[in-house]
């Protein structure tokens, strides 16, 4: 009930604030948003608030993955693509060939937390150690200062934007410039929640997920870029300042410079009200709270 009231009040105050503009041009029509599963809840929350402000507008949000969103943007079946990664050069070439000039917007930030069982004595790891662990060259916890026990690797599916990001920014490339691969032994779990559950149940497991999933049954590891440190845990401040090394932007892509409804929606997303929604859904706003 209180929640409903709060929402009404926000809607009313915003409606009053933009009253002059709204009177000049009442927004109508519908907006299609497709893409990242990471962003589905966030985009849905934005859509609901936006529809509360503009009752004549319908905003439809579907997931399916970043790739699906980009494909739909190029194919013209959605107005905004939500992605947890940048468009690939291949995708941009494809878009250009179809006469679409995709434009990128940073809508929120997400830090990827590396988690272990709370009983694990390992509390900090460097990026290099993480790369060694997830590629399978470091196979025992004692090699990184823990107990003598085999490491159980947990990863997200290869379709996940989180997986792609982790592979690019933690595993990186080998000396000859090829992508380094996740160990074949790594368990690919279908959701972030599955990783959280398995880490909670397994003293030797290590996994990663968007920081919104962190919980008391999982211990978050401090990550450093060199052995000298500093080792940083993901938090709103460390992600926004760039101190936490495994953080990424969550993006929207529009077809060319946005117009009409798409522009109004993006303006809302980037406004203080839109960014307040980001915090409520446990991601990191792009600007500090005012």
């Amino acid at each position, binding site marked *: 009930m209180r929640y409903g009231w709060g929402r009404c009040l926000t809607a009313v105050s915003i409606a009053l604030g933009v009253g002059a503009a709204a009177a000049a041009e009442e927004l109508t029509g519908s907006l299609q948003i497709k893409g990242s599963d990471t962003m589905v809840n966030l985009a849905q929350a934005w859509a609901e608030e936006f529809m509360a402000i503009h009752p004549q507008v319908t905003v439809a949000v579907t*997931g399916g993955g970043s*790739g699906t969103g980009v494909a739909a943007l190029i194919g013209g079946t959605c107005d905004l693509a939500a992605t947890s990664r940048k468009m690939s050069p291949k995708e941009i070439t494809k878009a250009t060939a179809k006469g679409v000039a995709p434009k990128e917007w940073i809508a929120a930030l997400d830090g990827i937390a590396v988690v272990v069982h709370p009983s694990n004595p390992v509390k900090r790891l460097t990026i290099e150690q993480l790369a060694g662990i997830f590629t399978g060259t470091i196979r025992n916890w004692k090699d990184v200062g823990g107990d003598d026990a085999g490491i*159980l690797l947990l990863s997200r*599916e290869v379709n996940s934007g989180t997986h792609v990001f982790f592979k690019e920014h933690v595993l990186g490339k080998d000396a000859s410039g090829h992508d380094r691969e996740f160990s074949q032994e790594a368990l690919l779990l279908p959701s972030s929640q*599955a990783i959280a559950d398995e880490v909670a149940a397994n003293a030797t497991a290590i996994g990663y997920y968007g920081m919104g999933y962190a919980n008391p049954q999982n211990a978050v590891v401090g990550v450093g870029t060199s052995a000298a440190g500093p080792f940083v845990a993901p938090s709103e401040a460390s992600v926004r300042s760039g101190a936490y090394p495994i953080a990424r932007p969550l993006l929207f892509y529009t077809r060319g410079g946005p117009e009409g409804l798409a522009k109004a929606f993006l303006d809302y997303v980037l406004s203080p009200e839109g960014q307040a929604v980001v915090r409520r859904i446990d991601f990191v706003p792009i600007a500090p709270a005012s």
Partner: protein
Amino acid sequence: MTPRPWQERVIEGLIHLCGISSIVIVALIFLFLMKEGIALFRTESVAAFLAGDRWYPISDPPRFGILPLILGSCVVTVGAIALSVPFGIAAALLVSEIAKGWVKETLKAGIELLAAIPSVVLGFIGMALLAPVIKDVFHLPTGLTALTGSLTLALMAMPTIVSITEDALAAVPRGYREAALALGATRWQMMHRVLLPAARSGIFAATMLGIGRVIGETMAVMMVTGNAAVIPHTLLRPVRTMTATIAAEMGETVRGSEHYAALFAIGIVLFIISFIINVLADLFLHRED
């Protein structure tokens, strides 16, 4: 009150149409799979696809070897069938021959209820309850293994196997039972020397449908097998199946990309495998007649 001939002809025609359309639909599905999947083989040889042991579809360069996935599917399926067929036949015997009255009715209702549980729920039960038990019993690093998958799938194949076997047993004429008992056979001898052989083709069909259910199941296996694309040497290691791979990766692939084509190519392999199973079952059943 016999129906007029034109009505009969219309109904006959409709039934005919249904039969033919199902064949046409299967053919169209196969053509669609081929159309989408064939693009992969412009850059990847069939041998490298089928016999390669590395599945890294989004790497640079990508690797599309599905041997671990084929073996993963096989291991889980064989395990599930080895568990569910003997138990399923035993359960069918119990329901149709031994249990009486309310016990029989309760068992039947329970089995039907089991068939109605969505696979995602069974998958969740497997993940939350079964996996920790497997982990502790065998002292494994994780409970998400091929064995967990086999047990979960066995539970899913069971209702199919039990109800079809039960139908087959019920179809055996009463005279067979009475003749066997009259000759002095015990009930057990009657069941395993007379009843089961007489219902053999029905039991075989039940097994085949069970295999079909198991090899095509996606959601539950994705949740409980751990999805590590390694060639499985024992039932106690994580495996990755073909169906889980398609389901897990289809979401984020770029339409028309190599990865997209590779997932459809896995679909072709699955289609061919189920086709072969069906043909074998058909040959076997016709030889019986």
